[in-house]
């Protein structure tokens, strides 16, 4: 919403805001329980939506689809072509987790996260529920924090959904046993499962930057669809930029650049360099876009 648009509505906005601010002053000592209530509300709102459930369902189908395709095409891949770890999947079903995550991370996971994060504030504004939320004695920063946390939880849920579906499909379709890491060492199934959990956690964390970006875009507009499309479009644009050798200088700062470094955790010893760079970069994006969305949202006129 532009400033000019907001001017005629200033009176309305000022009243709403004043009410909210006054209410916030009434319950000043903010308790952990108060924050948790808002947070729980956000979680329920996110995960009880049909849309979220469908998104998670699609994510769960992806590993199954990959597994079935690899299973039917029993010849095996030709000379290392195809998605990552495909050669290992036929030997060990657990690798389906890593294949599925590697396939889902560039497109599917960011798309679902973009939908959830992009819609978080703009969607409320579009349906007209945002002002009622702000009337509640919660404060805008707290609401934003709750939205952001719900987005992070969705990242984790989405990643865990992919990983769990992949473990089940992998175990059903392929033999499972000792795992050969990509540096040639063989480890037991137990420690391999631990690594899978670690990889899933890292993948979920690498979407944190995108949640912050989505939230920021969401505070800019009153249209949920616009925010979702902009967020998903941004992910695609950034990945295209990441593939140009000419843009070599800026690529380490693109939030998608280090996404696939999670593969380094499948070596012995684990190679943490790229993973730590990834997590650091995500933290930087969260700080920048988190503060930007705070700056925008707490100063914004809520007219819807």
């Amino acid at each position, binding site marked *: 919403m532009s400033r000019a648009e907001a001017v005629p509505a200033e009176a309305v906005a000022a009243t709403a805001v004043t009410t909210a601010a006054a209410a916030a002053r009434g319950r*000043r000592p903010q308790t952990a329980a108060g924050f948790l209530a808002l947070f729980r509300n956000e979680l329920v709102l996110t995960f009880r939506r049909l849309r979220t459930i469908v998104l998670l369902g699609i994510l769960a189908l992806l590993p199954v689809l990959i597994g079935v395709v690899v299973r039917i095409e029993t010849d095996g891949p030709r000379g290392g072509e195809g998605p*990552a770890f495909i050669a290992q999947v036929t030997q060990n079903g657990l690798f389906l987790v890593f294949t599925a995550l590697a396939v889902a991370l560039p497109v599917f996971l960011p798309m679902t996260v973009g939908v959830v994060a992009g819609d978080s504030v703009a969607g409320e504004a579009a349906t007209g529920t945002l002002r009622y939320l702000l009337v509640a004695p919660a404060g*805008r920063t707290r609401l934003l924090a709750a939205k952001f946390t719900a987005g992070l939880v969705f990242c984790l849920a989405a990643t865990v959904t992919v990983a769990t579906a992949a473990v089940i499909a992998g175990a059903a379709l392929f033999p499972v046993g000792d795992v050969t890491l990509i540096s040639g060492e063989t480890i037991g199934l137990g420690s391999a499962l631990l690594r899978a959990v670690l990889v899933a956690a890292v993948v979920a964390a690498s979407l944190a930057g995108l949640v912050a970006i989505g939230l920021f875009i969401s505070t800019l507009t009153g249209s949920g669809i616009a925010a979702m499309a902009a967020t998903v479009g941004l992910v695609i644009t950034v990945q295209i930029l990441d593939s140009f050798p000419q843009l070599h200088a800026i690529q380490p700062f693109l939030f998608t650049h280090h996404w*696939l470094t999670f593969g380094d955790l499948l070596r012995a010893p684990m190679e943490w360099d790229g993973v730590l760079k990834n997590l650091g970069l995500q933290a930087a994006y969260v700080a920048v876009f988190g503060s930007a969305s*705070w700056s925008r949202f707490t100063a914004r006129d809520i007219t819807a």
Partner: protein
Amino acid sequence: MTDDRATAGSGPADEWQDGAPYRSRRRTLVRVAVPLAVTAAIAAGVGLVPALADSSPPELPALTAEQVVAKVLGSQAETLTGTVSLSADLGVPSQLLGAAAGGLAGGAPGGGSGGKSSGADPTAKLTGLLGGEHRLRVAVDGPDRQRIGLLEQLAGYEMIRNGDQVWTWDSSSNEAVHLTGARPDAKADGHPGKGPLTGVPTTPQEAAQQFLGASAGTTTVTVDGTVNVAGQKAYRLSVKPTGSGSTIGEVRIAVAADNGVPLSVVVKGTDGSTVLDVHFTDVSFAAPSAKTFEFTVPKGAKVTERKADPAPHAEISPEEAKAATEGLNVIGEGWTAVLSAKLPGNDVFVPAEGKGPRGKGGHGPGGGGKLENPLALVKSLGKPVAGGSLISTKVLNVLVTDDGRVFAGAVTLPVLQSAAGVK
């Protein structure tokens, strides 16, 4: 939470100021300042931390260039583990690298074999290192035992030598090559302890010795201060060709002060751009555990057995081998050495491609078809100059003469032309 309280705290004061608007100028300023400050702080952190870490070159006793070179060549360090970062920008298309690998390895039909041939083949894999950025994990324990792990995105490639056994394994295709009868001493002439596993310099040692050992006489070597590399204090050698004609302007080598192990090599072209940068990002001189050099074939891996006999390309048709070895020779020495070869004709090239030892079943013929007339193909890549056509890259120049001879080297065009006898 503190943010919230701050805004709520400052809010009422502004709000009740005799009907002033909710958003006063001060509030707006804070709103804008906070994200900007966060961005600035992060940018400063990203920019400054590496700069601070790199600053202050270590204090080391002054040594002459000869003493440092002697340190390198006489280095007794036999064991090492570390991570190497390698970035090469030769300006060569990767397809050409593949073809060159085939040619240099003794005439193996490498045309178009770039990265698509058997995944575990070391030649193709290593020439790939000459373009782009790579990270390698290196472990060395004397001349007999080395391990190089290429850390690729979501994949790995391992090369392990343990005595006369060499294993290579590619995780993305799950294919392994087992080379038996490799002679660890074969390549260790003059450089005991660092017989390279390959022709491509995968460690700073190998790269440094190529520059320091081979080019005495045509080179000025000076000590150019000290640097920290991978946490080690090091002398920095600056190596420059004395004569003109080379496309290499300068080679900078960092030599560990403690034991003379080269820790980084940076090659700069005559225009000052970096062509090759290979350096340790971390290094330790402790002996790697024996387990490092053991390799068990992963489950389901396709293993190709090979013998590292004196004629390593026995599968190649005799006439091709003859053409490849007889045609290849070196003109000149040092920085301006030029490699010359005769381009094979169709009659040799095309059938060889089909049954090449590395050609994958369906892939070989497809690749061969494209190379019906290699001379025309190569010439179409280059630009016409006196005596033939020139394929020019940042460092390497290749002159293909009209009669099908090839001259290549890290030299300028006139040197190539005089080697070819044109003009």
